[in-house]
């Protein structure tokens, strides 16, 4: 793995050895270990539950330089038995799992820099953020989030490493463009479940688990360790020994381990589009906190085209109606953010169903409120916009948000 250390690197080690110890001195004894690559690496971890805790702990211990954590949840008592980073005093604090996990891994290794997003991978993380990562690790509870990570990771050409656990069992999949694809392997049964869950407007419902599926810190520590092991290979550029294109299943109760080839990638799949570097416009003038109207004007000028639209992979709700009292309301809310809590003010009676009566899945000059910012309609910082003109489709990054990526 990796190249042999050059003489100059060895000298550097000897010069610092007597006066200052490195966190990873013992790892440097491994011939393949590239301390600089690991220190410079940026890794996104999606999900800070049982698997996420173990993954984060291992990344910190391995001295991975920058870690981006995404999770939308808060800590409950039931989480503590399998979450090495959480403590009893964390319960009912007005802080999110991602924030506390971030603090704790910095306690473990102060060299590690962290950035967190309390949000949903489906809508709250810009593609440009993912594009700047070396590898993405999924520690998720549901098929929808996996599907979206798969599509996003494919678009920006990143390997993503998926783990799952149940009881004393676990599994690992390493997805890499051209070798394996989560969406390609989905069955009709998976799609039925995804469509059903996508019908839930609320983020918590979409991602819900009722805590009835048993998971253990044993399986999470085993699978998370393997996820990080694979991530370290990706960071080192080690494709030869990567598990990409293979699946791993572990059954601790029966001591069974199976590694087998992933299903072949299909020719036709919605995930399969990788944005090439030459296709990407780095728009330093565009940011997520700018007004929609200003963004559209810039795009019109840039592409010299009056027929500009920004395509979305979610709906922006423009009108809702309380179904029993049949009262309609004009609103502008991205559907993935339209939580149960947000519906309450529109219910004439408690629990009254609210229906979406008008929505758009793209933004153009006819959008009802051009004064709103891109962020207010669900476009996150550093996102890559899919822009349609009268002639073609283009990809435009909100590169003006570059300072958003700020590991601390």
């Amino acid at each position, binding site marked *: 793995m990796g190249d042999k250390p050059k003489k100059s690197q060895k000298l550097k080690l000897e010069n610092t050895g007597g006066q200052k110890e490195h966190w990873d001195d013992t790892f440097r004894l491994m011939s393949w270990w590239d301390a600089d690559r690991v220190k410079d690496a940026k890794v996104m971890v999606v*999900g800070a*539950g*049982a*698997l*996420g805790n173990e993954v984060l702990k291992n990344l910190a211990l391995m001295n991975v330089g920058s870690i981006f954590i995404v999770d939308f*949840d808060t800590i409950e008592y*039931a*989480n503590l038995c*399998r979450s090495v980073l959480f403590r009893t005093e964390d319960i009912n604090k007005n802080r999110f799992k991602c924030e506390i996990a971030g603090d704790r891994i910095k306690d473990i290794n102060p060299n590690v820099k962290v950035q967190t997003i309390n949000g949903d991978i489906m809508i709250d993380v810009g593609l440009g953020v993912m594009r700047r990562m070396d590898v993405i690790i*999924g*520690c*998720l*509870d*549901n*098929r929808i989030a996996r599907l979206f990570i798969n599509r996003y990771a494919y678009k920006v050409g990143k390997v993503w490493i998926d*783990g*799952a*656990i*149940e*009881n*004393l*069992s*676990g*599994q690992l999949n390493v997805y890499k463009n051209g070798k394996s694809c989560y969406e390609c392997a989905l*069955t009709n*049964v*998976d799609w*039925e*479940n995804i469509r059903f869950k996508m019908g839930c407007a609320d983020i918590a419902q979409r991602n819900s*688990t*009722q*805590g*009835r*599926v*048993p*998971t253990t810190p044993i399986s*999470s520590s085993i699978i998370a360790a393997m996820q990080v092991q694979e991530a370290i290979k990706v960071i080192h550029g080690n494709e030869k020994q990567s598990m990409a294109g*293979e*699946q791993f*299943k572990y*059954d601790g*109760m*029966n001591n*069974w381990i*199976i*590694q*087998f*080839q992933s*299903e072949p990638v299909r020719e036709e799949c919605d995930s399969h589009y990788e944005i090439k570097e030459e296709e990407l416009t780095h728009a330093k003038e565009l940011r997520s906190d700018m007004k929609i109207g200003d963004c559209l004007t810039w795009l019109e000028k840039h592409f010299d085209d009056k027929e500009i639209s920004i395509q979305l992979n979610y709906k922006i709700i423009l009108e809702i109606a309380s179904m029993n009292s049949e009262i309609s309301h004009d609103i502008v809310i991205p559907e993935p953010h339209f939580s149960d809590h947000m519906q309450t003010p529109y219910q004439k009676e408690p629990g009254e169903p609210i229906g979406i009566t008008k929505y758009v899945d793209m933004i153009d000059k006819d959008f009802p409120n051009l004064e709103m910012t891109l962020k207010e309609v669900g476009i996150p910082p550093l996102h890559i916009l899919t822009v349609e003109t009268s002639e073609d489709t283009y990809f435009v990054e909100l590169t003006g948000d570059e300072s958003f990526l700020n590991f601390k």
Partner: protein
Amino acid sequence: MSNSEVMGIVVRVMPSGDELEVELPIYSTGKEIKEELLAAEVAPRVDPEGNPYVYDLIFKRKNVSIGDSKTLFDLQIQEGDTLYLAPRLVPGGK
């Protein structure tokens, strides 16, 4: 070989640990085998929260999953071979 020929294979079920000796037609597909095994209730169709389980049928000797449309014959599975029926797990431990 004729369509009616059968062979005995071993199916190991994850995570129950059950080991079953089953007679299967050599031209039965992965989908048919899984459906028969689930119909015989050797493994649950849904998890404790009611979400569906999707299963892989894995031929360990060749480290491949028997796709829904592939047959035992296609993969040159032989008398006495072992297959694993394993769920595709979803939880990450909230």
